[in-house]
């Protein structure tokens, strides 16, 4: 039996650090895109003409009903077959973004629906058209109201981002695995990866709390 020995970790830090970096990059890009796409989907589902609305709803329904891993494989391995070759990093970002955009869209849709009708009426009475009212008045308020719920989604996204290791991206988990295959020290390096995820989560939570505090006054 081997005892725990963390003194081996610093030696492999360059590789682990690179994995951490990719986890941060992929998560951040996917988080931003999933929020923007989520707002877009919510607006389309609520306001677009039926020709657009129903396909979007079908798409959302399909994405909610299938596992993220399957979506990732479809985008990375499946699309190649019909001539769409997306690099692994982008496949990962697209899969994570769309997967969480669908959940975010549902949250935004509820947030928009919960908004006081008087807000729309006030904007319309000033002469704002329907879309300008949505963009300047409805969406900014709905987004503020959904910060906690969307924030939880982003914490989930950060952890789920490890799934891109399945298509060979050396993010944090995959980097740990690479190091373990060399050192045969699974416990030390998985724990190191876990500690790093935990650290990232603490940072993300602090950021979310900051945003919540900032929007609290303006609600």
């Amino acid at each position, binding site marked *: 039996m081997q005892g725990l020995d963390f003194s081996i970790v610093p030696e492999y830090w360059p590789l682990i650090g690179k994995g951490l970096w990719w986890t941060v990059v992929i998560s951040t890009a996917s988080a931003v895109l999933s929020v923007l796409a989520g707002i877009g989907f919510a607006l389309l589902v609520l306001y677009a003409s039926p020709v657009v609305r129903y396909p979007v709803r079908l798409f959302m329904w399909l994405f909610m009903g299938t596992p993220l891993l399957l979506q990732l494989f479809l985008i990375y391995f499946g699309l190649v077959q019909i001539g769409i070759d997306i690099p692994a990093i982008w496949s990962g970002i697209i899969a994570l973004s769309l997967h969480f955009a669908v959940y975010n869209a549902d949250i935004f849709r509820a947030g928009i629906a919960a908004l*006081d009708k*008087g807000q729309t009426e*006030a904007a319309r*009475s*000033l002469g*704002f*058209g329907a879309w300008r009212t949505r963009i300047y*008045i409805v969406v900014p308020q709905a987004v503020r109201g959904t910060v906690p719920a969307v924030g939880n989604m982003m914490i989930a996204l950060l952890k789920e981002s490890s799934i891109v290791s399945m298509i060979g991206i050396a993010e944090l988990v995959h980097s740990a695995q690479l190091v373990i295959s060399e050192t045969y020290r699974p416990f030390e390096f998985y724990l190191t990866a876990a500690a790093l995820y935990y650290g990232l989560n603490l940072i993300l939570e602090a950021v979310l709390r900051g945003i919540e505090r900032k929007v609290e006054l*303006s609600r």
Partner: protein
Amino acid sequence: MNDTRPMIEVRGARKFFGPLEVLKGIDFSVARGQIVAVIGPSGSGKSTLLRSINHLETLDGGEVWLDGVQVNQKLDRRSFERHINGVRQQMGMVFQHFNLFPHLNVAENITIAPIKLKGMAKAEARALALKMLDKVGLADKIDAFPARLSGGQKQRVAIARALAMQPKVMLFDEATSALDPELVDEVNLVMKQLASEHMTMVIVTHEMRFAAEVADRVIFMADGAVVEEGSPAEFFRNPKQERTRSFLKKFLNG
């Protein structure tokens, strides 16, 4: 400019909510600079009438005109949207529940429409906001968020917001009904000042005393119809209809 043309004209306004006829063919007009108070029991259709002037309610029959332009024209959807946005920029509306934009501070609440709809420069818009806030006595709140204001202050900002678009008319939909009694006066004072500046106003209100003080003409509605109208003096002192008398009696005793 034709000064004898009415600023607001409503002809044969009809409106149904499902099977319920809430406006049963209303005619009335407001002259330039005139102040009309619309009173009546709840459910009489007075708010619906007011809201149909700027097309927040769509009439099922009849016409609404603003300064010689028909508000509820028959146009295709896109053209109508453009038309109505233009018309609404000329009408300020003040709501019972203020409806300030909570995500914007006071200055932004007032300037967002001039900036986004009229293309006004930011600095110019802020100067305009300051001027309007001065008018309602809240220049010191220019950077506050609505959540930090009292109800009376919110409503005064809402009035400033409407005035910043330099409207031809102001529509007040029970502007003081949601306020604590001690905050009503500060809003009424602003409205009286507007009256003294000859702003054309239609005021839907529950406050008989205020209507009597500020209005040139009082319209009494019940069950979707105009029961009686006249100058405040004759209306309050000498109501002709039984329905008006019983309404006023209930109000004065209550």
